[in-house]
């Protein structure tokens, strides 16, 4: 018979196999350890790093203020980029050909020219348009501004970075939107939801799962791209500009560039953690079980550990 009487069966012994040896892995690990140790030693003992100078400048008010300016630039530029990106992506998918090609043209221009050029361009905008007016195109104008008072260096930096980012975000958002099944739109429309409502309530929230990871990437990239603004001498300066100002006086180039690098690393690390939790939030419903956060995993392990030790001590007490 194919199915034997299970009551008669005894569970066979656990397999206790001798594991396969991996000598190659040991060799590779050895090489990595030796190289790592050599690098660590050189960093610690090479006086040219001037760790003392790094410590001296790391928390000065100049540098701290510059960190703040860098964060401001990043946040504002990304805000402009994301809003513009959603707008351009929706325009790009519009049935109106003129609207769609306007979006295409924008992306073509801003993605096709270097950011540094765009930054310099906005900085010198007054040479192109000395005055800005608010009013009806070809009609009456209500207010005039001089470009030099309206677009200060900080504004020029934010505009250049944000408008450039908009072109990249547009493609990211568009990829997100077309990743949502058409059936979702069918279902929403069959329930009587308008196009706009469908986009806002059904399509975009589900597109977020695809949009968030590259947006996190863009934010991290933006944080570092803000250093290009040092080319137009912001006052007060951002991180790279600030350390440049210092080493122009003291000639301690390497330690001050390290000060900036360490700050950039700290900021990108914080962003990476933020991205993890954001992805988790927008992943709800997409996977059967959300992955544990590191904190939850730690708590569970601690609990399991405590549980195990309590059980062990109870068992020991019983035996006694």
């Amino acid at each position, binding site marked *: 018979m194919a199915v034997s009487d299970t009551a008669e069966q005894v569970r066979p012994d656990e397999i206790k196999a001798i594991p396969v040896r991996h000598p190659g892995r040991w060799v590779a690990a050895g090489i990595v350890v030796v190289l790592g140790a050599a690098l660590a030693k050189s960093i610690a003992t090479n006086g040219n790093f001037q760790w003392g100078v790094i410590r001296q400048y790391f928390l000065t008010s100049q540098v701290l203020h510059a960190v703040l300016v860098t964060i401001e630039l990043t946040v504002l530029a990304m805000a402009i980029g994301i809003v513009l990106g959603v707008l351009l992506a929706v325009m790009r998918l519009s049935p109106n050909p003129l609207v769609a090609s306007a979006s295409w043209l924008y992306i073509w221009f801003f993605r096709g020219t270097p950011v540094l050029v765009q930054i310099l361009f906005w900085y010198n905008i007054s040479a192109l348009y000395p005055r800005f007016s608010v009013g009806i195109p070809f009609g009456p104008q209500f207010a005039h501004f001089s470009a030099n008072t309206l677009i200060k260096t900080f504004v020029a930096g934010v505009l250049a970075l944000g408008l450039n980012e908009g072109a990249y975000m547009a493609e990211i958002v568009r990829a997100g939107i077309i990743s949502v*099944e058409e*059936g*979702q739109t*069918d*279902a*929403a*429309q*069959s*329930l*009587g*939801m*308008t*196009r706009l*409502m469908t986009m806002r*309530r*059904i399509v975009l*929230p*589900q597109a977020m799962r695809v949009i968030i990871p590259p947006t996190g990437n863009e934010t991290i990239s933006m944080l570092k791209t803000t250093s290009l603004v040092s080319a137009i001498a912001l006052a007060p300066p951002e991180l790279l500009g600030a350390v440049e100002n210092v080493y122009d006086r003291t000639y301690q180039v390497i330690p001050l560039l390290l000060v900036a690098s360490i700050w950039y690393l700290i900021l990108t690390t914080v962003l990476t953690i933020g991205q993890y939790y954001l992805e988790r939030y*927008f992943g*709800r*419903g*997409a*996977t*059967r079980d959300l992955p544990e956060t590191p904190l939850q995993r730690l708590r569970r392990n601690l609990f399991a550990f405590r549980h195990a030790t309590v059980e062990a001590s109870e068992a020991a007490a019983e035996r006694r």
Partner: protein
Amino acid sequence: MSEPMVKAEQVHKSFGRLEVLKGVSLEVQPGEVVCMIGPSGSGKSTFLRCINHLERINAGRLWVDGKLVGYRQSGDKIYELRDAEVCRERAQIGMVFQRFNLFGHMTALENVIEAPIRVKKVTKRNAIAEARVLLERVGLADKVNVYPAQLSGGQQQRVAIARALAMTPKLMLFDEPTSALDPELVGEVLEVMKALAFDFQTTMIVVTHEMGFAREAADRVLMMDDGRIIEEGTPEHFFQAPREERTKQFLAAIL
């Protein structure tokens, strides 16, 4: 006699140069349950999508509850309806899809209350109360706060039915509601649909290959082939003496 719930006159629909509907005419009375059968590509699903204007027809006329679908006629001129007006019409027609199309980022309850709150402007509290009743009616009272990915196909389809019913539609369209389901899950969905037909006298148009359901619940069966309705009659007629050769072939293949 009352006005028909759905009336189609010589409906034509093409996708590019491919003509999918080649003159479909039909009347469905209020409270009637009509099953549409036919080989894939015969235009059944397209016709269903035309009824709530998910597809726009190229020629002919289509009325739901006495009103033209997607257009307004005054004199001999035909005007397209604005998005908001089309939405108002669609809100009164429920549709259930082959692939369920539940909103993946919302729980079962959120799926059901979304349209009543946003479209019908029902208060959230009332919408939730009604949704709970509906989910209980389709046997999912314990799955209220579960996301679609955690539900079986049959459960998802029952949530989808509850979602459509939450708009209190005067007409329900079912587009192969059991074709994507594992065989053992088909029954639970058909039970819910039978209850709609028998207990609530809902007007239903069902594209299906479930002849058992057609025999029990349908007032009429339509056979579509190549963009036309080629035969129509009671379920008994189709089981006992189908007239057309094409119908005989098709039934022999699916039964």
